[in-house]
């Protein structure tokens, strides 16, 4: 039993100390004067006694056989760890290399737009083109411009028999804006394109945007023979 130690015995209420205690636990702060109780329970028929003690706290007051064993076990566990020498492994290092590449990606759907031409007039494409542009730039400040263009201004569409629809007869409406003929200059073709957007870019955060492009073909003045005319519209972006 770990007893409670005090400087002076306190007032004794019971004259006879019981033969067996069952619990007596008092916590106090070392060096401070405290007043604590100790309870004793005797064997059957022996009654109980209550002792009131006071004095300077001399340590941890723990009473109880099981608790003592617990403290001892903890001591055995902890002491070797404190007493043993430290053993450290070497330092293994893993190099991390993360590269954020500059990229601009364009997806355009549908891949085919049909026109039912009239002899002399305007025909609208069967569906607008949805263009999604995603970019990751490594510059803090710049711009991204996107263009739609034909590789040839004289023959945006052709029947393959020298009958052509020039790019000037093809118009595009970006995001429901006014129709503009494909006669603009782009970095990728001269006189056969339109600018879809020109966006200021600040910081390097990845960004994306979606645009729609409606297309029209005017056959006025072309005197085209009846037939099927095909062409390829290119969508391309450039970051500066």
């Amino acid at each position, binding site marked *: 039993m770990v007893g409670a130690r005090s400087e002076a015995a306190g007032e004794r209420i019971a004259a006879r100390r019981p033969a067996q205690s069952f619990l007596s636990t008092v916590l106090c702060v070392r060096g401070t004067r405290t007043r604590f109780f100790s309870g004793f329970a005797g064997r059957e028929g022996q009654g109980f006694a209550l002792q009131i003690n006071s004095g300077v706290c001399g340590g941890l007051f723990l009473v109880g056989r099981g608790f003592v064993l617990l403290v001892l076990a903890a001591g055995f566990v902890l002491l070797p760890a404190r007493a043993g020498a430290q053993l450290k492994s070497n330092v293994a290092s893993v190099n991390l290399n993360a590269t954020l590449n500059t990229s601009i990606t364009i997806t355009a759907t549908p891949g085919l737009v049909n026109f039912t031409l009239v002899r002399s007039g305007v025909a609208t494409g069967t569906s607008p083109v949805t263009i999604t542009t995603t970019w990751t730039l490594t510059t803090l400040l710049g711009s991204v411009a996107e263009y739609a263009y034909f590789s040839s201004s004289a023959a945006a569409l052709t029947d393959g028999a020298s009958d052509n629809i020039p790019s000037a007869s093809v118009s595009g409406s970006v995001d429901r804006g006014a129709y503009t003929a494909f006669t603009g200059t782009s970095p*990728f073709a001269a006189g056969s394109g339109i600018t879809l957007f020109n966006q200021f870019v600040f910081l390097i955060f990845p960004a994306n945007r979606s645009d729609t492009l409606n297309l029209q073909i005017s056959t006025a003045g072309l005197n085209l023979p009846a037939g099927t*005319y095909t062409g390829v519209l290119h969508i391309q*972006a450039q970051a500066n």
Partner: protein
Amino acid sequence: MNAIKKAWLVLGAFGLALAMSLASQAQVNSGASTINLSATLGESVSVVTGPASITFPLVPSGTAAGNNPATITTSWALAKTRTSLKVYAYFASANALTDGAGDNIPNTAVSGAVDGAAAAPFTGATPYGGAFGMTVFSQAIGAAGTFNSSHADTIALTINTTGLGLPANTYTGVLNIQAQAL
């Protein structure tokens, strides 16, 4: 004071980074996304005529001119396999006009002057049956610009009642205008 210094330092660092960014950047192009375009122009031939009605103040025996010439506008878009286009004006039968009571004006009594040329009776053959018409316009197809075009003509109509012995009445008829590409 320290706060102002720090602010200037941050601003300077940002400006330097910005300048370096602007100086070092180069053009970056995306790949080209392509959209296929397919435009189909079907063959077509159309004629538009006017006015809808032409009236003739007939005389007992003689020639009466229609109050207005017939105007015919022919438009076409033809495949490159075509070689000719012709426009015809014709009546469906030998009875060009009738009063509905058995009194008729035959096609031979009706003449047309196409585009100011000499008048000719509607006695020519057409692809639409009989010899009750005339050719208004003929175009060879094959040269550049001939596959898709339009053309306007006029027909000044006259009715000659000489020898018909018509009773006084109102006579009506329908002149058909039709084009054919070969």
